[in-house]
């Protein structure tokens, strides 16, 4: 597992991206992150729900109650228009940052 404090700053964008693809619920997102990174990065649930709270407060995502599993309803998250715009901007910003950092990190 890698140091999570560097990834931490990008968690909002990572989670937004997953919700952007389709509406998802909490556990599904943490599973998806572990799967896609081959368990190299695992998000702590506590962090995940804190991010949900933050994104919802910023109106980048919204939630609704979905289907029933194991006796109780799942809460699904859905990206808003504002969230899409924010994600697009973040991706552009990330590409820029990546290029800049790469100038110094590549070739060694």
């Amino acid at each position, binding site marked *: 597992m890698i140091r999570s404090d560097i990834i931490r700053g990008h968690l909002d964008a990572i989670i937004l991206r997953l919700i952007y693809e389709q509406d998802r*619920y*909490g*556990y599904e997102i943490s*599973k998806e992150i572990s799967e896609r990174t081959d368990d190299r990065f*695992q998000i*702590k*649930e*506590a*962090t995940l*729900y*804190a991010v949900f*709270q*933050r994104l919802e*407060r910023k109106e980048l995502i919204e939630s609704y109650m979905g289907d029933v*599993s*194991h006796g*109780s*309803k*799942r*809460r699904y998250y859905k990206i808003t228009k504002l969230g899409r715009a924010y994600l697009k901007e973040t991706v552009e910003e990330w590409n820029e940052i990546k290029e800049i950092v790469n100038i110094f990190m590549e070739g060694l």
Partner: protein
Amino acid sequence: MKKIRTHVEEWFRDIPDSEQKQAIQEEITQNLEEKVFDLMRTGKSEEDATNKAIVEFGDISDIKLELGVNNGSGISAKDVRKRFGLHLGFSIWGSCLIIAFFIFINFYYSPDTIWFVYPTFAVLWWPLVMFYKWLGWK
């Protein structure tokens, strides 16, 4: 599964009750239970699975921070007003009495020289400061 519910309740115990707290608590319980079922499907006993889910949950303080920030910002400005409202009232009454006292002495003992304005200016700083504190200025 009752263990999960108890644990989640324990984590959230010192957060003041609200609809938001209720919702997030419910959501976390539901998601953790699902994780436990998943872990059990991979061959773990219920107890092992529950423990793993609880240990992997992480630090609740992140969520507390998010929930706290929500309630905190709204109250603080109002709180400041309420607190300094009393100070402001006191300072206005206090300075009025002091000024009246100086006016009385001035006109009673030395009506030919008007000197009460000097202490009046000095005393007026008091309600002025309290007024700006009440407005919420630093």
